[in-house]
């Protein structure tokens, strides 16, 4: 197995795809981080100078101590992890497309060995992407925010954990879909359409139908819930007493519409990743490589 893992790792490092996708990832993360800081500052200035002071009294802290950047960071992680998902999606579909899958299967004890080795390597890549995303979101936010709106050390650590976890899970999900639909263009178009459009529309429908809890069990809803819930929990821990209605609104802003705990959201998404990987495994196992 160690041999196959090394082979899969070499496959990823001997072509340019890893940095080709990492560049737009960190640019997006940095840009979102910068925008988060600027928007947070604008919002707090607005809140401090208006009638909204009442709300701040109500929450028990002055607006300049609201850690509003948390929501932006959560959203930045959600959007940036689309890239590691695409990277993962190319793992198997790319090999089928370029027919290198033939030699891969000829040199592995079994197809399952080859796929598991691939999954392990892409978990590692997911973690690397996650750390890069966190680093660049952090740089962006720190550059443009007042220190009062930034999380404390524990908060940063918690966000970094959520970011790396989220990135790993998204990559795994991509690997599974790429195995299920062995076509590079089809896989990527489907993933982007689903994560950026289809499920967001579905969220509106679910809210309209007054069953918003379902959102937390959908793929995009659960992965957003992982980072979003961490952000909301961190915000609430310093914001004083918040009534449940306001908490729901905050969760929606952070992207954690389903209101599940962060670890629950992670488990739900892990379940989705497991389902698509099992499906992809079944397809690959019985596929005739002609």
């Amino acid at each position, binding site marked *: 197995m160690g*041999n*196959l893992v*090394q*082979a899969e790792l*070499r*496959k990823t490092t*001997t*072509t*340019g795809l890893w940095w080709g996708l990492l560049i737009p990832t960190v640019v997006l993360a940095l840009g979102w981080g910068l925008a988060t800081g600027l928007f947070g500052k604008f919002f707090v200035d607005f809140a401090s100078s208006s009638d909204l002071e009442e709300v701040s009294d109500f929450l028990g802290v002055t607006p300049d101590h609201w850690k509003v950047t948390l929501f932006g960071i959560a959203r930045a992680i959600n959007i940036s992890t689309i890239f590691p998902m695409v990277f993962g999606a190319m793992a198997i579909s790319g*090999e089928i497309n*370029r*027919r*290198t*899958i*033939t*030699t*891969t*299967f*000829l*040199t*592995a*004890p*079994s*197809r399952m060995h080859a796929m598991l080795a691939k999954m392990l390597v892409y978990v590692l890549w997911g973690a690397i992407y996650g750390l890069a995303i966190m680093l660049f979101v952090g740089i962006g936010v720190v550059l443009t925010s007042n220190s009062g709106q930034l999380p404390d050390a524990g908060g940063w650590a918690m966000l970094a954990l959520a970011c790396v976890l989220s990135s790993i899970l998204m990559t795994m999900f991509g690997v599974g879909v790429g195995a299920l639909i062995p076509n590079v263009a089809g896989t990527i178009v489907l993933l982007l359409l689903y994560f950026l459009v289809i499920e967001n529309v579905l969220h509106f429908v679910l809210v309209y139908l007054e069953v918003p809890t379902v959102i937390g069990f959908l793929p995009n809803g659960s992965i957003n819930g992982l980072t979003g819930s961490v952000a909301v929990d961190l915000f609430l821990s310093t914001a004083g007493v918040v009534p449940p209605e306001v908490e729901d609104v905050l969760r929606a802003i952070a992207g954690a519409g389903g209101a599940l705990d962060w670890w629950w959201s992670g488990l739900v998404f892990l379940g989705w990743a497991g389902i698509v990987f099992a499906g992809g495994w079944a397809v690959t196992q*019985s596929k*005739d*490589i*002609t």
Partner: protein
Amino acid sequence: MHDGSGLIAVQNLTKKFGSVTAVQNLSFTVSPGNVTGFLGPNGAGKTTTLRMLLGLVKPTGGTATINGRPFHQLGQPGRVVGAVLEAQGFHPARSARNHLRVYAAAIGVPDAQADQVLGLVGLGTAADRKVGGFSLGMKQRLALATALLGDPQVLVLDEPANGLDPEGIAWLRTFLQSYARMGRTVLISSHLLAEVEQTVDQVVIISRGQTMFYGPLEQLRQQQQRRVLVQPSDVNALATALHAEGVQTIEQLADGRLAVSGVDSKHVADSALRAGVSIYGIQEEQVDLERLFFQLTSGQYAGYAPAQNPYQQQGGWA
């Protein structure tokens, strides 16, 4: 684990793709120590058979084993069998050396092996070039290098001469023969008998997914018929003389010559001398292996000759 015999055994192998039967009840064995040619026209089922042997295509029925085991039970397949398949993939952005290092890691052989096989196939100077810029012949050589990485006991090659120049083909021939002489098994497919005639010792000829001939090439050669075409001064006298000597197959051709089978031209000339018949012309004709191969495999996807155009209306323009 496998028995290390180097034996390839195909038994009653069948593959159906939907309603199309690609391979039907195919059986043959390939033993180590010689090069076996796997021959048949395009679409005869060669590639499908080899891919079933290599575990890439699942048989509908029957078995295909290497060293007594199906491919997925070989443990470390890269060390047992190396394969060069048609349309085998390379990542265009990866260099030849990196391509080989990926699979050297998978098989579990040291990286130095990558440079060694590159030198072996004559690609040493192109090691750091990206495969996307390789010619078809260079890709074939790289595919062979990949197959040789694990120093396998069994080598399976699907149309390996495709894209190779005459020099490359001559090199491949020598290489495969010496590989087999080391006591290893070499199975090589081709749709042209002439292409592998000088390379192989054994042949398996298939057509329409079925075995047509299976045995030593020498045996196939013996099946080929020779005949002597002779123009005598007296056809009847020569025919009678030959008949009296026990020659059975004598045929008179339209151009007045006799076609005599089963004897050589010397025999015919001597008989003519004894019978007092003059010979104006004599020639030996051999039905070559290619024609024999054609007879064994003809029929599948046969096109019409222009004169037999089935769409021609009878008497349409007359």
